[in-house]
């Protein structure tokens, strides 16, 4: 169980995390979502006692992390896969960590096998690919077989097979009754992994709800039509009460009408269409809308939607 209460971190005049309150429960994967610079990593660092909060508390199973004598049996965490000394072998790296917590040496080989690095243990970490380092980081988190696991952007650098593997691992860990807390800036990653979502932007809490509830926000659907005569079709659809926007070439993007209605209108008005595709609103869209207001680093002059409240 992870509990964050009114957690705040200021760096001078910059508020990285602003009175954040939420919790993550055992037995499920909690996705921690937010754009770059939303305060996800800072929150996790405070949770792990690496950074001192300006105010508020962050506890794991009712305790501040710094009050745990040894951490690995209670909390496993992967913050940054590069937080290793590249001159050591994976075996030595894990052996030192296991030793510091009084864990048996055999755990090193066990976790390396779990993450698929059994044959790479004798190699120096400097020679690892980013994907291998992510796996090593996950192995580090699993070392003490802890009831609470934290992963900060764990699938960065993993190949598609690795992403699927990580996703299944997180599901399995949660199914075993553990608290699994995974941060990401990509909604698509969370869609198939998380049971519960905590969305932050600009250091503030934006949403804290089950995935199913979050998905219901994604209602704006649209229809994309390919037609040789976009102008004529747009006119017809607008007269029928839809909003039609020619979007270059032969395509028109329609909102306010279903795919069936678009087909029917085109048929009755004798406008040729080649293709009618319905797009359900994706979780990605819902996430983008929600966080649009809080984006700190944005490219160019993208129009800002009014959603988010």
């Amino acid at each position, binding site marked *: 169980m992870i509990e964050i209460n009114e957690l705040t971190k200021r760096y001078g005049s910059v508020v990285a995390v602003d009175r954040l309150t939420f919790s993550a429960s055992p037995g499920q994967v909690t996705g921690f979502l937010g754009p770059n610079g939303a305060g996800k990593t800072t929150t996790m660092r405070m949770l792990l006692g690496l950074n001192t909060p300006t105010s508020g508390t962050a506890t794991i199973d009712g305790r501040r*992390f710094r009050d745990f004598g040894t951490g690995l049996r209670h909390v496993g965490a992967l*913050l940054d896969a590069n937080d290793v000394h590249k001159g050591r072998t994976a075996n030595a790296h894990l052996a030192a960590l296991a030793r510091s*917590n009084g864990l048996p040496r055999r755990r090193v080989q066990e976790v390396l096998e779990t993450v698929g690095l059994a044959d790479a243990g004798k190699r120096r970490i400097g020679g690892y690919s980013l994907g291998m380092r992510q796996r090593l980081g996950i192995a580090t988190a699993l070392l003490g077989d802890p009831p609470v696991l934290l992963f900060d952007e764990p699938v960065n650098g993993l190949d598609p097979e690795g992403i699927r593997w990580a996703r299944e691992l997180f599901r399995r860990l949660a199914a075993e009754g553990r608290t699994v807390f995974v941060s990401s800036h990509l909604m698509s990653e969370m869609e198939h992994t998380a049971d519960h979502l905590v969305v932050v932007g600009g250091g503030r809490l934006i949403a804290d709800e089950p995935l199913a509830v979050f998905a219901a926000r994604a209602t704006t659907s649209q229809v994309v039509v390919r037609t040789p005569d976009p102008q004529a079709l747009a006119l017809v659809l607008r007269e029928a009460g839809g909003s039609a926007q020619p979007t270059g070439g032969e395509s028109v993007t329609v909102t306010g009408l279903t795919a069936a209605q678009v087909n029917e209108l085109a048929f009755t008005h004798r406008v040729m269409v080649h293709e009618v595709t319905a797009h359900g609103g994706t979780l990605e869209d819902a996430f983008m809308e929600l966080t649009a207001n809080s984006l700190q680093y944005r490219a160019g002059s993208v129009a800002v939607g009014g959603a988010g409240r």
Partner: protein
Amino acid sequence: MTAVVNSPISRARWRDLLGAEWIKLWSLRSTAIVLGCLIVGYVYLAYKAAITTYDAWPTMAAWMKAVEDPAHDAFDFPAFMLFEAAMGTIGAMTISGEHASGLIRTTLIAVPDRNRVMLAKVAVVTGVLAAVGLVLSTAVWAATFTVFSGRINGYSFSTPGVGRSILATTLMAPVCGLIGMALAALIRNTAGTVFTVLAFFLVGPVAFKGRVPLLSADLAADISNRLPAYSWARLCLMAHGHIVGRIASVPTAWSALIGWAVVSVALVVLLRRRDV
């Protein structure tokens, strides 16, 4: 499906933390290479110096023989300034290596008790560098006595001053390492730390022998005598026949070395509160 176990809270055990730091130190190839080369190199220097004295002995003036100080050959001061800098750098790297790589975060997630982590590191560095100092100084004397035998008589491990120089070197090596650790804890940035360590050990002893701005000559001499290099050199001195200038008393030299160690450990531990 495995059962999730909520383990009881327990403090990190010292022997586990020491074991972990021991693995960390020796699992870097450079540790064994650098320490091995230092020992071999300095024994070789002492061996060459002893041969020079041995060869010159028959033609040496009687008054020179009377003030002969074998420690002067065995522990060549300028060469040992580099040794002190090496010890300081090794100590510094045990901390700045963790900060530069980010390993410090992984370490502190495994053991949140920063005090204990840092003290275990201090203990391992102290123990290993003390062993290096002991082995090196003993081997240096063994080489010297072997070369001297048959021509320059009267020196052995039981000669007054030999034991003190061994003890002083055994203390000096970890003290320099601890100073390096303190500077690394203070500065964190690797390049900045190494620059400061080198400046302290290589430039410091030279700078304080000259005229130091804002300090009276007496004060400059007092500080200079308490620098680790001069404190150690004072304790290695067996015959101070014709030294010009002020030298510290033996107790002052011992307490200066111990003082550097205490202040350094305090800095390493006190600086632990910062965000990493």
